[in-house]
C-alpha cells in the first residue's frame, strides 16, 4: 500500500489555494529517517472515504509546519527540512479501518529539554482533526541526541536503593486509607503502624493535598514523627511520599521545601499538575536530594482505549525524560487495567538502558536511554500477599509493591498487615534465589512461611482467593510470532 511520493515541486507547489497534504511533502514513502529524527507512530482511523495516506500526511502536516492552505511564507524557510514526513502506513492487524502511520520529525523542530514543546507539536492540534475519526499516539523513538537534552530521573533506581540501604528485593509500600477524611494525627498513626510493621514506604493518595479535615503542614509534621519513630523501632530507613501537589507552583515549592526541612527523603506529585510543573519539580528534587514520586492521576482518560489518545508507554517515556523517580505502571494482577505483555513493555521503558523493538510488548522502536537514570515502577491497586509469586514473576525486583488495602485491611491490624507482606516477600525472594520454581510453588512457599508468621497466615486466609480477572482494553496488536521490520 505504500505508494510513490506524490510531492509537487517548484512553482506548482506554492500556487495559492488548497492542496492535499500528501502532495505538499508530508508523505515521503522513500524517506529514510535519520538517527537524529524523532519518530512518532500513530494509530489513525480516517473518516469513511478518507484515504489513509492522505490522513497520515495530514497528521504529519498538522503536527509540524502545515496549515489548511498553501502559504508562500514557507519559501522563507528551509521548508523541506521542517516538514514532518509520513513515510510508512500499515494496516493494523485485525482492526479494519485503522492504520499505523510512521512519521519522522527533524530534531530542529523541538526545543531541547522541554516536554511541553515536544507535546505541543506531537499531540497539539492533530487529535481534533476533522478528517479523522480517532487518533492514538502509540509509541515514539526519541533519538540519543534529544534524550541527552533532559535531566532524567532526579535520583534513579540505583541511588534510591543506596540511600534507602535496601537491595535485592522489591520495596514495599502502602497508600494510607481512607484516602480522604483522616485528621493529621490519625493519618500519622497509619503511617507509623505500617512502617514499623515492615514496609519501606507509605504514600499519600493523589487527592490528599490540603483539605478542611487535614491541612498539609499538619500531615507533614505527623507523618515525619511516624517515619522517625519507625526508623528507630526497626533500624531501617523509612519514608512517606508527601504529596506536594497544589494549585500553583509557588505553593508546591513551599510544601516541598517544608518536606525537605523536616528531613523527608521523598516527595510526591500528581500527573495532573502538567509537564512543565513536573520538570520543575524534578529539578527541585535533584537540588534537594529528594526522591520524586509520580502518581499517574488522570492518565486513563487518554491512555486506556486503543483507538484514541496517547499510549501509557509514551507517557512513561516522557516522564523518564522529565525526571520522575517513581511512576505507577500497573500491577497486571490487581484491580486496575493492565495486560501482562503491555505492562511488561512499560516496565522495560522505566528500567532498561536500551529497549529493543518488541512488538509483542507494544514496543515499536529501538529506544536508547543514553545512561539516563532508571525510573522505579510502582505497582499499586488491589494487590495482596497471596499474589507475591505472581507479582515477582510479572514485575521483577526493581519495583515498589504497594499494598494499601492489603496492609490496612488486615484483620489483626496495620502492623500485622505490613509484616505479612514483608514476610511473604522475603520468603519468595529467598526461594527464587535458591533456584526454586517459585511461580508454581508460590502458594506452598507462602504457606510454609505462614507457619512461623501468624499475620501472613491470616492474610492468606482473608485474601488468598481474591483475583481481578477482566478482559484487557489495551493489549498489544501483535502476537509474539509476528515479525514486522522497522
Amino acid at each position, binding site marked *: 500500500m505504500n505508494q510513490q511520493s506524490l510531492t509537487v515541486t517548484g512553482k506548482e507547489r506554492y500556487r495559492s489555494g488548497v492542496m492535499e497534504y500528501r502532495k505538499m511533502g508530508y508523505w515521503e514513502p522513500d524517506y529514510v529517517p535519520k538517527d537524529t529524527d524523532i519518530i512518532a507512530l500513530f494509530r489513525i482511523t480516517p473518516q469513511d472515504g478518507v484515504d489513509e495516506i492522505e490522513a497520515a500526511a495530514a497528521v504529519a502536516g498538522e503536527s509540524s509546519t502545515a496549515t489548511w492552505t498553501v502559504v508562500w511564507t514557507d519559501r522563507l524557510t528551509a521548508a523541506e527540512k521542517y516538514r514532518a514526513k509520513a513515510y510508512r502506513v500499515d494496516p493494523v492487524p485485525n482492526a479494519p479501518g485503522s492504520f499505523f502511520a510512521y512519521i519522522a520529525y527533524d530534531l530542529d523542530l523541538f526545543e531541547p529539554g522541554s516536554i511541553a514543546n515536544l507535546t505541543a507539536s506531537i499531540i497539539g492540534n492533530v487529535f481534533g482533526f476533522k478528517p479523522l475519526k480517532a487518533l492514538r499516539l502509540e509509541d515514539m523513538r526519541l533519538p540519543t541526541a534529544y534524550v541527552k537534552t533532559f535531566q532524567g530521573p532526579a535520583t534513579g533506581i*540505583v541511588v534510591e*536503593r*543506596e540511600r534507602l*540501604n535496601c*537491595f*535485592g*528485593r522489591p520495596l514495599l509500600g502502602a497508600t494510607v486509607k481512607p484516602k480522604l477524611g483522616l485528621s493529621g494525627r490519625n493519618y500519622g498513626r497509619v503511617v507509623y503502624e505500617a512502617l514499623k510493621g*515492615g514496609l519501606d514506604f507509605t504514600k499519600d493518595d493523589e487527592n490528599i493535598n490540603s483539605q478542611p479535615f487535614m491541612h498539609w503542614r499538619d500531615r507533614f*509534621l505527623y507523618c*515525619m*514523627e511516624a517515619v*522517625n*519513630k519507625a*526508623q*528507630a*523501632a*526497626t*533500624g*531501617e*530507613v523509612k519514608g512517606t511520599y508527601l504529596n506536594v501537589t497544589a494549585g500553583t507552583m509557588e505553593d508546591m515549592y513551599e510544601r516541598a521545601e517544608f518536606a525537605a*526541612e*523536616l*528531613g523527608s527523603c521523598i516527595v510526591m506529585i500528581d500527573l495532573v499538575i502538567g509537564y512543565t510543573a513536573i520538570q520543575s519539580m524534578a529539578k527541585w528534587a535533584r537540588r534537594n536530594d529528594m526522591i520524586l514520586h509520580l502518581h499517574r492521576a488522570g492518565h486513563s482518560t487518554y491512555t486506556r482505549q486503543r483507538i484514541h489518545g496517547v499510549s501509557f508507554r509514551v507517557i512513561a517515556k516522557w516522564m523518564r525524560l522529565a525526571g520522575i523517580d517513581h511512576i505507577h505502571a500497573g500491577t497486571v494482577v490487581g484491580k486496575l487495567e493492565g495486560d501482562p505483555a503491555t505492562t511488561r513493555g512499560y516496565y522495560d521503558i522505566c528500567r532498561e*538502558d536500551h529497549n529493543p523493538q518488541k512488538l509483542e510488548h507494544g514496543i515499536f522502536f529501538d529506544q536508547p536511554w543514553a*545512561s539516563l537514570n*532508571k525510573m522505579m515502577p510502582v505497582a499499586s491497586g488491589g494487590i495482596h500477599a497471596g499474589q507475591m509469586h505472581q507479582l515477582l514473576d510479572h514485575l521483577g525486583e526493581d519495583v515498589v509493591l504497594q499494598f494499601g488495602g492489603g496492609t490496612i485491611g488486615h484483620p489483626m491490624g496495620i502492623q500485622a498487615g505490613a*509484616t505479612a507482606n*514483608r*514476610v511473604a516477600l*522475603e*520468603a519468595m*525472594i*529467598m526461594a527464587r*534465589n*535458591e*533456584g526454586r520454581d517459585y511461580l508454581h510453588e508460590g502458594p506452598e512457599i507462602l504457606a510454609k*512461611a505462614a507457619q*512461623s*508468621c501468624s499475620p501472613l497466615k491470616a492474610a492468606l486466609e482473608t485474601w488468598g482467593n481474591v483475583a481481578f480477572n477482566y478482559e484487557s482494553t489495551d493489549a498489544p496488536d501483535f502476537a509474539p510470532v509476528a515479525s514486522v521490520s522497522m
Partner: protein
Amino acid sequence: MRVTQGCFSYLPDLTDDQIKAQVQYCLDKGWAVNIEFTDDPHPRNTYWEMWGLPMYDLKDPAGVMMELSQCRRVYGERYIRMSGFDAGHGWESVRISFMVNRPKVEPGFRLERQEAKGRQQRYVTHAYATDRPEGERYGS
C-alpha cells in the same frame, strides 16, 4: 528489638546452608561477595568495616563460607552482613545485602526529639550500643 536491615531479616535467621545458597546465587550472577561487620547498626551507617576485600572470581561458595566463619570467630558479637556487588554498567552497586550474624542482645535505638520552630521536631536516632566505645558495645 531486632534490626531488620537487609533482605531476609523478617525470616528466621538463615542457616549456613541457606546462606550458601544465596552466595551461590550471587556467584552465578557474576557478582563479587563482600563480608562486612559493625557494632553501630544506625540505619544510615553506610560504611561497615570490610572483612578483607570483596571476593571476585569465585566459583564455589565454600570460600565465602570459610571467610564468614573466620569473621564470626573474631566478630561474632557484632552485626555481620553479606552483599553481592554488580560491577555491570548502569548498576555498579550492591545488588543484594543480608544479615548473617547479629549480637545476642540487640538494645536498639532511642529516638531523641528537640523542639524547634513552630511545632517542628529535630529527630536523632541514637543506637544505645554506641554509648560505649567501639569494640566494647556487645559483650566481648
